[in-house]
Every structure is written in structure tokens, then in C-alpha cells.
């Protein structure tokens, strides 16, 4: 009999080692290799004999409100273009950027992709997108709002086509304003009037109803949410190609933000979704939200499904004016772009046109989503569909006051420091001047200044 048989003790030792290794395996960081392995194998477009497959990464198909309507547009496009197959790949909004970057780095990018905010700039910075200037006519460009084109232009080249246009605007509950002794037909026109309204609401409701919610979380979207308010205070966080975060106007804005949070006019640490719950439940009088506000509120409070009831209860206008002296908002668009590696770019652009400017897109995408089409010709052609007070306010006041954010490949890293500074201002009693000075120093490093 051999002496080398495993004893119980040795077996237990080996087991302990195995458990230790298993723990380490569980602890292993998500390296690029492990990530690359989970990237879905996607069939890219090939120029095979009259057969074209275009992959389309988008979050519109991942959301219940828009999924069926996007599929409808795709089906129509395929029937009008025999031999073309659209491979629709839905990803949630929160993960689509990672998926596109990983697929692109792995050499297998989607042909067409839905983008938003800073995504076109990061991908253009990676040289992953096809410039679209040669695909669009001057007339097409003129049909768009300059700010919306600016929000998709990097180093003077257009990298994405504006799709649905959803900038934030100032919503006010006429019903609640009346309840708290405010004139429901006179929403606050200035920051001073807004502050006075906040105080009246708090006093009258004994602190049970909030004035307005501004997203103060660490999400990059919180910056998009707050940016127009910074501009209203006369601040230009990024000026002439350089960070300008410690300007006196930024001090004024952060001081105001701290004050409205400390006074509990603005509930801290919540995201836009939470504020909509408050608005639907009559716990918040004003809202800073997009044109889809009606749809989201009606999904929570069914009474608001009735247009008449909704328009009697809520109305929308431009942001109250501050030191800037004029109303302003920022672009918050969904865009469509084509990968540089796409094998059939002409067909990909034709598909984008079907998504952006077809009649079906208006009736079955923009309107159900509650967004505004980017093209003036479309809103003119379907003017009866956009004749309601909300659409009119957006078309006449809000969209023309849009500005693009200073997006770019370094914006993600920069936004981290801006958000940290914002949270320091809201959650601590530290000197705002010092907070902004520190943030400015970090931003200079990010931008290599």
C-alpha cells in the first residue's frame, strides 16, 4: 500500500487552498479581457451580394414606451429596402455607452447607434465615428436648430444626427400654486420671484411640499440637469476652451443651491425619477424636466392621462431669469451616428433618415415618446399634432433658447470633479470659494492646462 494516499488532513488543507483561490476568483477585477469575453457576438454589415445587415445598438428598443414603435419603423424600412436587414440590438441607457466602446475596441462596432450627451464626443475622440458632413445637405442642416447640431459637432465635423429633442424646461403646477396662494397664471419670472415662491410654498404647506427638485446625485446627468441654472446665474463653467469653475457667478450659483437645499425647498440626493413621483403626488410645485413630463406623470397618476385635466393642472415655460438676463436651457438630445467601420454607410444613413424624418417617425415615435422632432419641416407638416400648449411652449420659447454643453472626450473625467464640488457645496459647510478653487485646479489638470 502506498504511503502517498491523501489523508483527511491533507484533503482539508487542499480544500482550504481551493476555497482561497475561489475567493480570489470572485475578487478578480473586471479586466478588459473578461469584459471582452462577454461582448455579444454581433454580425456586422457585409457587402455580400445584395444582402446588407446593419446592426443597430439603441436603448429605444429596450424601453417599453418606444420598443414597438421603433420595431415598426424598422419593419417598414426593411420592406421598402429589400435585401436590407436591421439587426436591432437593445441595451439599457445606462449600459449602451460601455457596450459601444467595448464592441468598438474589440473591432466589432455596431453600424448605427443611438447616442446622447457626451457619447458622440467620446466616440469621435476615439475615431470610431464616421463624419456625416458629406451625407447631409445644406437644407437639412438649416432645418435643424444650430444648438442641436452643435451638440453633435466635434472639431468642426458633424458626427451624429439629432433625433429626439428633449431639453429641460420649467414646469409649474397651476393647481398647487393656487393652493399655496400664488397666482397660477404668473409662474416665477426671475430667481428672486422663484425664491419667494419657494418660501411661500414651504410656509403654507408647513414643509410638507417641496419647491423644486434639482438632481444633486453623482450621476453625470445631474450636471446636464443643473447646467442651465448655472448659466442663468451668469456662470460659464467652461469658457473659451478652458474651465472657468471658480468664477464669482459659480460661487453665487452654488451658494443658492446650498441655500435651497438647506431650506428643504430642494430635496437632496434624489434623481429626476424621484422628483416625478413628487410632482405626480402633488408634493412638488415646480419641476425642471423634459417634454415627456406629461407622459411620465400620467403613467404615475392616471387622472393626468386626460389632456384637458393635465393642461388645467400643469403648464410649462422657460427658466426664470437670473443675472444672465435671458432664458436659457441646454440641449438634451438623442442622436444617431454611423460607425467608421460600417461597410454600407449610404444604407446606414438612409436608415437614419427613416428614423429621423419619416412621417411614421413623427406619428409613432416622437409623439408617443413626448419629444419634439429636430426638423422644422416636420413640426410644420404636422402642426396640428404640435398645437398643444406644451409643444408650443417648447417650439417657441424653450428650444430656441437651447445651448450645447461643452462636451468633449475629457468631459467625463471633468464632470467627476464638477459633481464632487457640487456635492461638497450641497452637503457640507465648507467654503464654496475653496471648493470651487480645488475643483478648478483639478479641472485644469484634466484639460492639461
Amino acid at each position, binding site marked *: *500500500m*502506498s504511503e*502517498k494516499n491523501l489523508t483527511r*488532513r491533507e484533503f*482539508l*488543507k487542499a480544500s*482550504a*487552498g481551493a*476555497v*482561497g*483561490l475561489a*475567493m*480570489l*476568483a*470572485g*475578487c*478578480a*477585477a*473586471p*479586466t*478588459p*479581457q*473578461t469584459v471582452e469575453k462577454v461582448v455579444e457576438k454581433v454580425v456586422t454589415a457585409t457587402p455580400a451580394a445584395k444582402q446588407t445587415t446593419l446592426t443597430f445598438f439603441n436603448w429605444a428598443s429596450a424601453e417599453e414606451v418606444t420598443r414597438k414603435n421603433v420595431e415598426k419603423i424598422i419593419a417598414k424600412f426593411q420592406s421598402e429596402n429589400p435585401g436590407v436587414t436591421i439587426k436591432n440590438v437593445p441595451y439599457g441607457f445606462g449600459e449602451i455607452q*460601455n457596450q459601444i*466602446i*467595448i464592441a468598438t*475596441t474589440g473591432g466589432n462596432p455596431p453600424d448605427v447607434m443611438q447616442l446622447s450627451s457626451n457619447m458622440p464626443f*467620446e466616440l469621435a*475622440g*476615439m*475615431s470610431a465615428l464616421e463624419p456625416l458632413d458629406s451625407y447631409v445637405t445644406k437644407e437639412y442642416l438649416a432645418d435643424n436648430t444650430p444648438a442641436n447640431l452643435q451638440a453633435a459637432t466635434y472639431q468642426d465635423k458633424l458626427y451624429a444626427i439629432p433625433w429626439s429633442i428633449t431639453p429641460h424646461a420649467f414646469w409649474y403646477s397651476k393647481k398647487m400654486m393656487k393652493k399655496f396662494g400664488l397666482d397660477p397664471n404668473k409662474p416665477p419670472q426671475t430667481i428672486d420671484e422663484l425664491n419667494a415662491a419657494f418660501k411661500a410654498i414651504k410656509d403654507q404647506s408647513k*414643509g410638507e411640499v417641496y419647491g423644486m427638485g434639482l438632481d*444633486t*446625485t*453623482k*450621476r453625470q446627468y445631474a450636471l446636464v440637469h443643473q447646467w442651465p441654472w448655472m448659466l442663468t446665474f451668469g456662470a460659464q463653467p467652461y469658457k473659451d476652451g478652458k474651465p472657468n469653475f471658480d468664477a464669482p457667478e459659480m460661487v453665487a450659483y452654488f451658494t443658492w443651491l446650498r441655500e435651497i437645499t438647506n431650506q*428643504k425647498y430642494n*430635496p*437632496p*440626493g*434624489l434623481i429626476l425619477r424621484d422628483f416625478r413621483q*413628487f410632482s405626480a403626488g402633488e*408634493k412638488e410645485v415646480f419641476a425642471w424636466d423634459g417634454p415627456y413630463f406629461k407622459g411620465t406623470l400620467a403613467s404615475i397618476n392616471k387622472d393626468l392621462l386626460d389632456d384637458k385635466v393635465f393642461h388645467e393642472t400643469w403648464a410649462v415655460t422657460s427658466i426664470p431669469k437670473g443675472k444672465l438676463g435671458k432664458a436659457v436651457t441646454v440641449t438634451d438630445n438623442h442622436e444617431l451616428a454611423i460607425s467608421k467601420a460600417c461597410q454600407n454607410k449610404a444604407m446606414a444613413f438612409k436608415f437614419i433618415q427613416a428614423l429621423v424624418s419619416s412621417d411614421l417617425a413623427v406619428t409613432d415615435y416622437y409623439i408617443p415618446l413626448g419629444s419634439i422632432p429636430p426638423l422644422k419641416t416636420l413640426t410644420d407638416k404636422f402642426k396640428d399634432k404640435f398645437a398643444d400648449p406644451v409643444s408650443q411652449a417648447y417650439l417657441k420659447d424653450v428650444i430656441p433658447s437651447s445651448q450645447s454643453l461643452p462636451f468633449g*472626450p475629457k468631459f*467625463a*473625467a471633468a464632470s*467627476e470633479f464638477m459633481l*464632487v464640488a457640487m*456635492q*461638497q457645496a*450641497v*452637503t*457640507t459647510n465648507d467654503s464654496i470659494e475653496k471648493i470651487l478653487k480645488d475643483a478648478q485646479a483639478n479641472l485644469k489638470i484634466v484639460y492639461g492646462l
Partner: protein
Amino acid sequence: MSFKVETIAWRKWLARWHSPWNETGLAMLLIAPAVAIMGFVILYPLVRGAYLSTLNYSLLDPAGPTPAYLNNYGKILQDKVFWESLWNTFFFSGASVLFSFIGGLLLAILLDQNLPFSRVLRGICLIPWIVPFIVVGFLFTYIFNFDVGVVNYILRAFGVIDSNQPWLARPNLAMTAVITANVWNQTPFYMLMFLAGLQSIPSELKDAASIDGANPLQVFWNITIPHLQNIMVITTILMLIRNFNNFPLIWVMTQGGPIYSTTTLVIYIFRLAFSDFNFGYAATVAVIWLVMLMVMTALYVRRFEREIAL
């Protein structure tokens, strides 16, 4: 005759495998597939991750990776967020383990008594342990909600606070909220381990000590604790390792904020890699984090070996 010859040959062939050299060879052959798979799924990513830590590698940079050698490690020394994350990691893990330990021990002692429905109670006490981290995160996000959270409601009802506190939006409160959620989730594991230990103590020992005049506290201190000592140490190390890499709970509740108050090393690595796409520096932080985990794992294995030897 032939039958006999065959039998002898067969025995000789078998005997060959009993020689130490051949036995080792057979063992290596048998474990080779497992080693190959483990090497591919564990060792290769680790080595590759260590290699990435020596590069300037941003996915957003079209120029691709360039050598950084040890610059990323030098950068860590200046990186305030790294040091804050490191402190948060130790604080989160240490506090979670400490409070779960105390809670688990108290529960185990309670359930070790002959209480009515003790089996049912044990089952109920285990429920938090089987709830996934993600669900615990969402659950406690609502429990600590600024407006409708039950914590604010109770504290106001008892007059502890005058107005609702933004638990997840204040740097000094957020870590408390996250640790509370984690302790709720992990206490049953300690309870389970300690209860098993308590039930393995021979009752004769306790009886003898009582007859000799020891009071319950002395019995607990001189008999129960020494018997539980090994379980305590091993469970603590195991849970330190588990808490060191607890990502989903913190991510769901605070995403590492406000500011960096709940940013632990795993959260920081995730942000560097998948928000900034700075894979080179993320790998550097991950290597340091992994070294710390390996030290803890080594402690755990050594302690486990000692227990077996006893």
C-alpha cells in the same frame, strides 16, 4: 496456466502505479484539466491585469496604449481619492464585520437556548442572509429614503431627530446607512457559524464547570469562547475578504457618493475603468487591491491549516 500469467502481469502493471513517481504523474495528469481551466480563467486575467497596470491605456485614446512602466504606481501616492477609498474600504469592512460579529454572537446564544419554536426562529433569522446584495441595496435605499423612509419616521416618532435626515445624501450619514444594510444582511451568517460552534461544545464540560461553582459568565468566558475561538477567527477573515469586494450594495445605495464618502476600492476601480475608461490606472489600483486580498486569503488559509492540525 494462462489465467495465472495474465493475473501476474496485471498485478505488475498495477504495481507500477504504486511507485511514488508514477503516482505523482497520475495525480498531475488528473488535475491538469482543472489547473488549465483555473489558469485560463484566473491566472491569465491576473497576469494581464498586472501588465495593464504598466501602461497608459485609455479606451478613449485612439493612439492606443503606451508604456507607463511604474508611473501609475507613483501616481497612486499622489491620488487623494485612492487613499480615501482605501480608508473607506477598511472602515466599511471593519465596521461591518464588528457589528455583524456581535449581532451574530448574541443571536446564536439566544437561539442556543431551548426556546419554543427555536427551529422556526432560526429559519426566520436566516432570511436576510439569502437576500441578494442588489435587493438589500434597493430595500435599504427605501428604508433610508429622505422623504418616506421608515428610519426617519421612527427616529422622528421617538423624538431623536426634529426633521427628516438625508441619510444617503450626507457624507457623514451615508456610510452609516450602507454599513447598517450590510450588517443586516451578514449577521445571520455569523449566527449560523456560532450556533454550529455552540452546539458542538460537550454539555458535560459546562455541567462540570457549573458543579465546580462557575457562574454563567465564567462558563461563557472560560468554556464557550475558547471553543468558538477558531470559528471566530476564520469567519472574521472570510467576511473581511467578502466585504473588501462588496460592490453591488454600495453601488445601488450611493454609487460611492456623496462626494467620495462611500467610495471603496472596488467602486473606485469600477469608476476608473467604466466611467473614465482609464484601464491602465484602474488596473494599477486593482493590483494593489488584489495584493491586500491575497494577504488576507493567506491568513485565512494558514488559520484553516492550524485548525485542522489541532
